């Protein structure tokens, strides 16, 4: 009887868990702390919305960066103090960041190697040098990191854009090496969303205003928010910025604007933004910048190296010359990313941003963040739309409704048949079938899985499979009874003998579902997940529980016979 008790406890625990997990879908449990609050997710094909797969043109970004590197190297060698005469510098394999330097004579070889090592040693590695020809390439780790950063920056930029669009639960994730998947549930205006997604990032360099009012900015912002009864948390960032700047324009000096920087501790802007008063007449933007990357100072401390292009160098030289000791903000899509202080006039277009002295990991992260922001403005990665799926809200609701009806009708027919054909055992089968479906929803909810339309088909199939298990058992019991076995023994034998067939069939179906899960995308994954969960719950409900119920009826309640 020990094993019976154990099985009983397991069964009850299973039922209780299923009940707790399903509960949030049925009633409002927000106020009960100890209960889980997760609700079942519906796929885009049910709730409607926009699904996009965008390809990030990483290769072009790398190529462009290589071409710019070649141009800047040429400029470097023009400088007589470097003392190297070159014949040519070419981008021999721009997509991989490979360049070839041809010297006028092999006599400069040693000088070139030293120069390259001193100035570009963190980024470029010597690949091959023969005679007067030297091939350099980005370090593999640097290139991998670079590509990765391009993708990450694209995702970051997209996320900011989409936050603007006000989608309830957007999902933006990397898919494969160079793709981004965007899912926007419930978006009705797909054209506008796509337009927003396809805009490139805007980078601005803006001087901080020295006006004394800048010191009272937090108070000004707070007052304006109070007076207008709004806050960043309840609005889109761009609308908030527009509104705020309109409200406090009278109190600010002319040609200034307030933008925010995300506080270090905050994961989202709404959780804490620091206002900056910025001058709008700086006139220096992403088009002036060639490239930016993380480099290291003389003590190995991370910093950001910026390289301005020809037009940008002159402007940047004037700007830094006129503003020594003042701060300049780096602004990406109207968000302040960093506000370093200008220490000296920079005339050659090569600037460095040194980080504040905190621990190395932090400064490294910050340097990476700033350099990617700069690069997003200087070298925006082009996005190419590869796949689009748009489901109107009415279609999803319609499909769900129809699929529900269809599943119910199917289940009803099956249940009626089971009751009619297997009588008492049919009642038990129906009961456990109910538990089965209930458990599928419980597990789907608990795993945070998504119910898609094919998933509903999977659910209907589960009903079929579950009944299959019961039919196998019942037919076995009948066989045993026909062979003259006593009723008690027939039940034991029936369950035991049906087990091998039940396991075989469920294992093969599980194998197919696992393969589908691995290769499938979106809705098909939903189908596979539902099937897999259905197999687990079928074994729990229609086999384990049904045996438990029969045992209880026979042993505890002394049933002499159950019709089958």
């Amino acid at each position, binding site marked *: 009887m020990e094993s019976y008790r154990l099985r009983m406890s397991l069964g009850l625990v299973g039922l209780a868990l299923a009940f707790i997990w399903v509960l949030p879908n049925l009633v409002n449990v927000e106020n009960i702390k100890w209960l889980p609050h997760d609700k079942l997710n519906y796929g885009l*094909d049910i709730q409607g919305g926009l699904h996009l*797969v965008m*390809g990030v043109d990483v290769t072009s970004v790398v190529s462009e960066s290589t071409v710019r590197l070649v141009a800047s190297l040429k400029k470097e060698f023009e400088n007589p103090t470097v003392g190297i005469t070159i014949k040519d510098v070419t981008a021999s394999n721009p997509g991989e960041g490979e360049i070839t330097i041809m010297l006028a004579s092999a006599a400069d070889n040693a000088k070139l190697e030293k120069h390259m090592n001193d100035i570009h040693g963190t980024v470029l590695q010597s690949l091959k040098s023969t005679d007067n020809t030297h091939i350099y390439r980005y370090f593999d780790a640097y290139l991998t990191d670079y590509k990765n950063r391009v993708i990450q920056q694209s995702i970051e930029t997209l996320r900011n854009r989409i936050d603007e669009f006000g989608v309830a639960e957007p999902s933006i994730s990397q898919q494969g090496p160079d793709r981004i998947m965007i899912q926007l549930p419930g978006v009705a205006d797909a*054209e506008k969303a796509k337009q927003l997604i396809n805009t490139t990032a805007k980078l601005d360099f803006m001087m901080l205003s020295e006006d004394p009012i800048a010191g009272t900015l937090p108070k000004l912002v707070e007052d304006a928010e109070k007076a207008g009864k709004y806050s960043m948390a309840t609005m889109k960032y761009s609308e908030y910025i527009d509104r705020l700047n309109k409200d406090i324009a009278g109190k600010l000096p002319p040609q200034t604007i307030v933008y925010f920087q995300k506080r270090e501790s905050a994961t989202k802007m709404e959780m804490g933004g620091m206002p900056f008063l910025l001058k709008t007449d700086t006139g220096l933007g992403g088009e002036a910048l060639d490239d930016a990357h993380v480099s290291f100072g003389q003590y190995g401390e991370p910093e950001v190296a910026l390289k301005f292009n020809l037009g940008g160098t002159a402007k940047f030289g004037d700007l830094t010359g006129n503003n020594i000791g003042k701060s300049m903000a780096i602004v990406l899509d109207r968000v302040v990313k960093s506000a370093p202080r200008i220490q000296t006039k920079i005339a050659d277009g090569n600037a460095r941003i040194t980080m504040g002295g905190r621990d190395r990991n932090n400064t490294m992260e910050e340097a990476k963040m700033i350099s990617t922001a700069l690069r997003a403005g200087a070298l925006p990665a082009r996005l*190419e*739309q590869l*796949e*689009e*799926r*748009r*489901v*109107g809200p*009415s*279609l999803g609701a*319609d*499909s769900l409704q*129809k*699929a529900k*009806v*269809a*599943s119910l*009708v*199917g*289940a009803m*027919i099956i249940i009626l*048949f089971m009751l009619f*054909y297997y009588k008492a055992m049919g009642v038990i089968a129906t009961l456990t079938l109910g538990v089965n479906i209930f458990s599928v929803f419980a597990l789907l909810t608990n795993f945070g899985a998504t119910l898609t*339309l*094919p998933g*509903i*088909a999977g659910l*209907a*199939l589960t*009903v*079929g499979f579950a*009944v*299959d298990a019961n*039919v*196998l058992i019942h*037919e076995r019991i009948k066989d045993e009874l026909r062979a003259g076995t006593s009723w008690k023994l027939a039940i034991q034998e029936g369950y035991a003998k049906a087990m091998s*067939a039940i396991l*075989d*069939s469920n*294992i*093969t*179906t599980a*194998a*197919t*579902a696992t*393969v*589908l899960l*691995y*290769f*499938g*995308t979106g*809705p*098909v994954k939903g*189908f*596979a997940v539902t*099937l897999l969960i259905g197999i687990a719950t079928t074994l729990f409900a229609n086999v384990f529980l049904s045996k438990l119920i029969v045992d209880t009826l026979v042993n505890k309640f002394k049933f002499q016979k159950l019709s089958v």
Partner: protein
Amino acid sequence: MHKNDDFGKFDFVGKIGIFGGISALLVFLSLAYLMVKGINYGIDFRGGTEVQVRFEGAVNIDEIRSNISKLNLGDVGVQGFGEKSEYVIRFQGKDTGSDKEKNEALNESITKIKNSLQTSFAEQKPEFLRVDTVGPQVGAELKRNGFLAVFYCLLVILVYVALRFDYKYSPGAVICLVHDAIITLAIFGMVGKEVNVPILAAIMTLIGYSLNDTIVVFDRIRETEGHYKGKDFSFIINKAINEMLMRTLITSGTTFVSALCLYLFAGGTVSDIAFAIAVGIFFGTYSSVYVAAPSILLMEKLKGKKAYA
């Protein structure tokens, strides 16, 4: 209790010739059909765009056709869908040019179609229910993944059957799967439905289900073989199948009813999945009796044993 020489109601083995012939013919016809017509791939695999639109007022399909043909988008198909005044517009876009150009062309076409329908049929209030665009890269990838999925699926199943059963059962199981999958694919093509990712998933599930059915039969044959040692193999098969008959019919019947209801009432993707599954179950059940069993018999014969009494 049955007598030892009573194998049950039906002499399945005796009619193997007829049904084996029918099966072979069906597979042959299906293969021929698939070879001539090819698998009817949908946009998931071919790449292209599908727009599903519903009009509140009545719209003639020819009006839509002439309207869209003015846009010069190449070969555009318009088809009535489900209820009246609901249409699916399909097109592949350009045949030439780089993947990038094809992507852009598809993308622009959606907007063109949308604008054109919205202006020309403003009174009928078009509602765009669904837009699917699959670019050439993603299409090729989905196709590759699809084939890989089917391959691994078959592999896993074969390994399982080989481990679980005697080698003489494996060929029968595989022949059954191929038989069911090919006939289902052909029927799918004949009724004019397209094979998209969810349908591939359905066919794979079907492979699993058909195998499940076959395994249950095998399981019983193996068990019966143990009970009636020395008995003729065709007797064993007949006995096993007859004993399993109710179970086979009932379980296939219940799943078939589930699928049929979804096919009749659900509409859209779910309906297509259900259709594939319903057709597959029908043939799967049939094949688990009339394809699997004879193949074991054949294996026995090849082994040199006397199969018929």
